[in-house]
């Protein structure tokens, strides 16, 4: 049974696209048929983060408006055969997306894939509500920082009000993905702790992704962290989160990237 997952946050720049890409690769590596759908019309970036920016011919809006067939617009990943993506349009604006058109595309994707992962634009406007509209599961990406937590709270309210499931009186599964976490700073009282964010937002935790140099490296290369041969701490967090999405129970590992004095000096040069 296909599942629609929305990756959302309210605030921009917290790691929605990075997390969509990393989770998509992790789920596909686990054997699922996965498609990533970019809903950020006008500001598409999932193609770039996935390293497929030069392969975009047709996009979501072309399919919604009937100018292209779904199969023409889908870009199959060259590294993982059971992973595809549907890019957003870079030239149109989000008014070109209609409710019925999106519903039709999602229904068609559900016939072909196990997981449909919708990368939401920032904000609480139409683009964001369209991305979450058909979701069965939501991942709320949050940084341990006041403005991100506040916006996540707002998005959680929207998930409970504006999704199809909510309107039918059904539950939408909501998960918190804490990104850019620095355990050492949280320990020193300089950053909100995992427990603090959980207490405030009160939705279950699906993963803690540590602040890491690997993330920028991955987007520089257009290769999500979960593609690497030797997965580091962020990749492991995404792999575990992907398994939790599939219903597995795995112990939550606190990424403890604390390096000693020498580790800091020599570790940086080595990376």
């Amino acid at each position: 049974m296909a599942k629609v997952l929305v990756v959302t946050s309210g605030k921009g720049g917290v790691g929605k696209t990075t997390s969509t890409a990393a989770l998509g690769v992790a789920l596909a590596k686990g054997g699922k048929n996965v498609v990533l759908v970019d809903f950020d019309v006008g500001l598409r970036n999932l193609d770039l983060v996935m390293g497929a920016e030069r392969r975009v011919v047709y996009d979501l809006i072309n399919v919604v408006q009937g100018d292209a067939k779904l199969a023409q617009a889908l870009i199959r990943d060259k590294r993982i055969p059971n992973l595809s993506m549907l890019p957003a349009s870079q030239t149109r604006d989000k008014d070109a997306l209609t409710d019925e058109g999106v519903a039709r595309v999602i229904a068609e994707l559900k016939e072909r894939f196990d997981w449909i992962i919708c990368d939401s634009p920032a904000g609480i406007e139409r683009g964001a509500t369209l991305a979450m509209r058909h979701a069965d599961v939501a991942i709320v990406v949050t940084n341990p920082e006041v403005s991100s937590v506040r916006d996540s709270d707002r998005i959680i309210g929207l998930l409970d009000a504006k999704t199809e499931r909510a309107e039918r009186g059904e539950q939408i599964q909501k998960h918190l993905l804490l990104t850019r976490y620095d355990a050492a700073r949280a320990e020193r009282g300089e950053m909100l702790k995992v427990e603090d964010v959980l207490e405030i937002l009160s939705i279950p935790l699906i993963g803690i992704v540590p602040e890491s140099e690997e993330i920028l490296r991955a987007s520089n290369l257009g290769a999500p962290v979960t593609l690497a041969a030797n997965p580091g701490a962020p990749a492991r967090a995404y792999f575990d989160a992907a398994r939790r999405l599939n219903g597995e129970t795995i112990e939550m590992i606190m990424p403890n990237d604390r390096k000693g004095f020498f580790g800091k000096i020599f570790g940086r040069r080595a990376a």
Partner: protein
Amino acid sequence: MNLISFFRRPATAPIAKDRLKLLLAHERGAVGASNVIALLREEIVAVIAKHFPVEGDAIKVRMETGDVISTLEVEVEIPTQLCAEIKGAEKDKAATTLKVTASA
């Protein structure tokens, strides 16, 4: 300030947590209450309309959120002429305001 406190900056995360909790308690209340207020308004209009021929927009329902107590304010504007006919009083003012404030 001694040497230790100079190097060890004060913890700011607890402040962030407290500020967020306070703020979100207000914001959630405001978002959640808006439906209740709309409902209250409809019901109040229905009750008052039984006795006075007032229009819907003559009734204002507001929720003011304070630190310790919040107030629910209901303001009903009734044309003075009407009021005078019923009560036989109050002819100077253009409109009579019936104001009810309740602590919530």
